[in-house]
């Protein structure tokens, strides 16, 4: 009796510790509050893009505004280039302004850059074309099209004052540490039902209101395709943990973020445009252990475990091997 109570308490304490560790550190305001005079640790100021009210009222401002409109309502303003139900701003929150939601001001200053995914130097224009091909499951607008010019102008304007070639705080999506347990579809499903289904629907189909998607579909024919960055479990886990549900960013643990990302990306979605005619070949050529293209969740989990073991082994040999991470913004596929 006492013994089992002991185990229970121990388990609770451990659970609390684990979930505490998984969360981003709280803002450094309450801890050991040393009299209000000397702030001990002030978080580095985040880049602030110009306010929307500062869009100039001239030809340049018109292009900024068109770019913003395309970005927020891609379905309407760039409909010829979109093949699903998504808008750019679905994955780049706050109209491309939000840190840890692949903000445009941080992306703009990192191009041109070599990307493994394309095997070439991508400019911001060709990078945006990639978004249309994969995330929008559409047809990329031409480099000199009105739409592309407007989108690049919007990026450029948001990046006003940002340092060129510098990886800024908040760039891309949050990197969420690999969780303690293998990501699990069944756990992910439960997390989805409790946190996500209210907006994205019981079957990930999104919710339409008066014609268009009010909440985007997460899988199925109207969602991003198998070539989009968000189909990667690690990328999706980072987006979800930092941003989902609205207003509740940072509340899912690392484990929960990976589990629910795995669940989301275990469903069917439009084919990878790079599909060669063979799923296995396309997988081997363009996909790695961070996605479920052409493999079951069990196979992926096994691959992740293997990788974790390898990483642990490598760490024992050479502790700080990971510090050489470059500033390349590009995930591999």
């Amino acid at each position: 009796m006492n013994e089992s109570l002991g185990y229970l308490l121990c388990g609770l304490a451990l659970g609390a510790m684990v979930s505490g560790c998984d969360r981003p550190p709280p803002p450094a305001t309450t801890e050991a509050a040393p009299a209000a005079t000397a702030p001990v640790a002030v978080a580095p100021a985040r880049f602030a893009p110009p306010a929307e009210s500062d869009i100039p009222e001239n030809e340049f401002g018109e292009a900024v505004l068109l770019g913003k409109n395309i970005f927020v309502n891609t379905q309407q303003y760039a409909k010829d280039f979109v093949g699903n139900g998504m808008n750019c701003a679905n994955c780049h929150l706050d109209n491309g302004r939000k840190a840890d939601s692949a903000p445009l001001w941080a992306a703009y200053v990192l191009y041109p850059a070599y990307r493994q995914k394309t095997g070439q130097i991508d400019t911001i224009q060709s990078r945006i074309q990639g978004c249309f091909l994969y995330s929008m499951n559409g047809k990329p607008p031409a480099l000199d099209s009105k739409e592309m010019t407007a989108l690049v102008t919007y990026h450029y304007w948001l990046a006003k004052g940002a340092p060129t070639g510098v990886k800024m705080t908040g760039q891309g999506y949050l990197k969420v540490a690999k969780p303690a347990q293998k990501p699990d579809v069944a756990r992910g499903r439960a997390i989805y039902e409790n946190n996500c289904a209210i907006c994205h629907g019981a079957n990930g189909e999104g919710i339409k209101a008066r014609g268009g998607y009010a909440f985007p579909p997460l899988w199925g024919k109207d969602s991003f395709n198998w070539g989009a960055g968000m189909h990667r479990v690690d990328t999706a886990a980072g987006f979800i943990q930092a941003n989902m549900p609205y207003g509740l960013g940072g509340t899912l643990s690392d484990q929960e973020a990976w589990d629910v990302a795995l669940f989301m990306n275990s469903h069917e979605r439009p084919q990878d445009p790079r599909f060669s005619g063979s799923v296995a070949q396309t997988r081997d050529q363009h996909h790695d252990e961070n996605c479920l293209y052409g493999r079951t969740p069990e196979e992926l989990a096994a691959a992740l475990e293997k990788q974790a073991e390898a990483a642990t082994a490598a760490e024992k040999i050479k502790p700080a091997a990971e510090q050489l991470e470059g500033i390349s913004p590009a995930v591999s596929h």
Partner: protein
Amino acid sequence: MRSTTRLILMGTMVMAASIAAAAPPAIVTQGKGAAIACASCHGVDGAGNAQAGFPVLAQLPPAHFAKQIADFKAGTRVNPIMTPIAMAMSAEDIESSARHYAGQARPKAGAAPADPAVIARGKQLAINGAWDRDVPPCFKCHAVDGLGIEPAFPPIAGQHAAYTVSQLQAWKTGARTNDPQTLMKTVAEKLTDDEIHAVADYLATIGTPGEGK
């Protein structure tokens, strides 16, 4: 000439709509026992009452409507007027009143009593939120026009400001806790009292499409 034709057409449509619409259920117009008629505070048309702070019910998603009554019954939402009424409502009363109000036209947008700067501040929050404080825009979940997204997110456009303020304050202080996944608490507790008033004033000034803004 053209406007006359339009008037006649509109009149015909209105008449056709009222003929087609079923008579309001008894729970709405007459009440039942301890459940006084819904219409005595919310109107048959669900327009509510701005001065008293009785909310607009028109076009509430039936699932949302039914959940509120169920929550009053269960004590997970508390209001001295609504709780006893909800307790006296049968499943059929809930279903018929929910269906009735879901079918009413959203009332015309109200006038803007507030300072234009206050309205502008409220509009900014409703459309763009304040993501630097993790405050999502109202319209992210309540639709770009504030007319709600079925089944869980009710319309907020055209809601009486006094009601919107009272509910945001209730979530902020913890007096109301029946929001799914603490979504509203999360937002409300990050808003200042001035912001709550600004956003409520703005929402009260917008209405259904075609109903002058």
